[in-house]
């Protein structure tokens, strides 16, 4: 379990995190969302025991990062956006090296298990420099799991992965949730967060701006609609305002080539071909 309690972190005069608090329970995936520079990476590094907070504390599996950061590191697996591997080492040696740093009794057996789990068993003796980007990211995940940690911190793990590999990675993360791990996923990919996260924490300029279940956040606020019409936009705005409807945005739609094609065919007397459904919503 991760319990982030009012943490702040300064780098010189820059306040990267400002009294941020949230929790991640075992068997839960929480997405830490925010734009670049919001403080996601700083938060994940503090939780992993890599960085000390300037203020506040983080309790990981009952242990404070302030009092015993080494014990916290033993309980966390940390994956960054870059695989960051020693590329001259073969996979087996690499996993065994990190296994020894975590004082595992049988590093060879663990390396075999992880390679099998991630579909890399046939590459155990290949140098990491020969692996594809997706395979390298798998190795980074294997490294993070080498000591079977109860807490997993994933900082933009799907960056630069192709869609197929990103999907494989998502499925794997979801399978880890079933094994009762507390998973924090730092990302700015809203689609990824929506697909796999149970809850979302939105950080902005170092502060927690909103926190809640994905469904609750999506349902928050008043319902809005999109209308498509042809004609004078200012008259449409005036008309809607006239009947008490607020127009929040009014943007000209740029037609795709496909839409332009169908319009031309229709105007040329080619009938009214069936157009693809471009948008789900309420038709005017």
């Amino acid at each position: 379990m991760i319990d982030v309690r009012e943490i702040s972190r300064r780098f010189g005069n820059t306040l990267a995190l400002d009294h941020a608090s949230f929790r991640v329970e075992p068997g839960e995936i929480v997405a830490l969302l925010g734009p670049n520079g919001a403080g996601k990476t700083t938060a994940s590094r503090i939780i992993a025991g890599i960085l000390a907070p300037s203020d506040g504390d983080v309790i990981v599996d009952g242990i404070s990062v302030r009092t015993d950061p080494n014990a916290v590191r033993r309980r966390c697996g940390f994956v960054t956006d870059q695989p960051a591997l020693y590329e001259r080492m073969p996979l087996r040696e690499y996993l065994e090296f990190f296994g020894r740093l975590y004082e595992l009794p049988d590093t060879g057996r663990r390396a075999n298990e992880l390679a099998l789990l991630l579909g890399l068993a046939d590459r155990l003796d290949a140098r990491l420099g020969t692996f594809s980007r997706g395979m390298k990211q798998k190795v980074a995940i294997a490294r993070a799991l080498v000591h079977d940690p109860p807490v997993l911190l994933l900082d933009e793990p799907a960056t630069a992965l192709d869609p197929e590999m990103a999907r494989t990675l998502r499925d794997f993360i979801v399978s880890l949730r079933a094994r009762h791990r507390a998973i924090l996923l730092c990302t700015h990919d809203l689609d990824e967060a929506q697909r796999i996260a149970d809850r979302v924490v939105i950080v902005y300029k170092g502060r927690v701006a909103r926190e809640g279940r994905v469904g609750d956040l999506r349902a928050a606020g008043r319902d809005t609609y999109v209308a498509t019409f042809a004609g004078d936009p200012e008259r449409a705005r005036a008309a809607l305002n006239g009947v008490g409807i607020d127009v929040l945005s009014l943007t000209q739609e740029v037609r795709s080539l496909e839409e332009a094609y169908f319009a031309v065919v229709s105007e040329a007397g080619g009938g009214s071909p069936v157009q693809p459904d471009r948008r789900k919503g309420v038709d005017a």
Partner: protein
Amino acid sequence: MKYAWQIAWREIRWEIFGDRGAIFRMAIFAALPVAFVLTNRSPRIGEIGIFALALQSVLFPALSGVALISSTFTQEKENGTIIPLLASPVRDVDIVVGKLVGMIIPVFSLCIASLAVYYVLAGSQYGETRVAAALPPAILYSLVVVALLYLLTAGSWVLIVAALVRTTRAGQQVAGLLIALSVAVFAGLGAAAAQIGDGYALIALGLLLVGSDVVAVQVARRVWQREEVLARL
């Protein structure tokens, strides 16, 4: 310090013996003094000359260590591989000591091997009696100690540079400057050290290196704290 040894062994096995470029660089620095001996067949070479060549043979391989130490630290930063190390339950001092030791052990071994090769070659070129007189055991021991101190000192200073620069190239450029400076110093040092106090001026050089080393390690300890390193990533 068991973690430091794990890190040191990884450096030796995979970053030195797994890197042909590193082996090639070390071989060049080790071959240079041998070439000096083989090309210098002058029967007039005196004890000063024999001593100066011995100093070069023990210190030239150490110069390759400066470049190696620089690249091992800057590459860790540049490639981000320092992050998984920092995320593991390893103390900062274990990382720094492990990487330094991992670079120093093979290079220092090469220094000793180079001096041994020089001793044998010089004996066959200039006469065993003359070489034994110019290089008594105390002098040989001093040369080995000076080489170790040089490696430690240069390694510590390079460590500081590696923490401050962002790229491997910048680190290598500064290491190159340090190597050039060292060559310039050593070129004149052999004659000077041998002329002053029968070569025991090396002790003064040793003390100078120790003093520099203490300062360098103190500065390195500060700049390689994980907070400082991460702030520069």
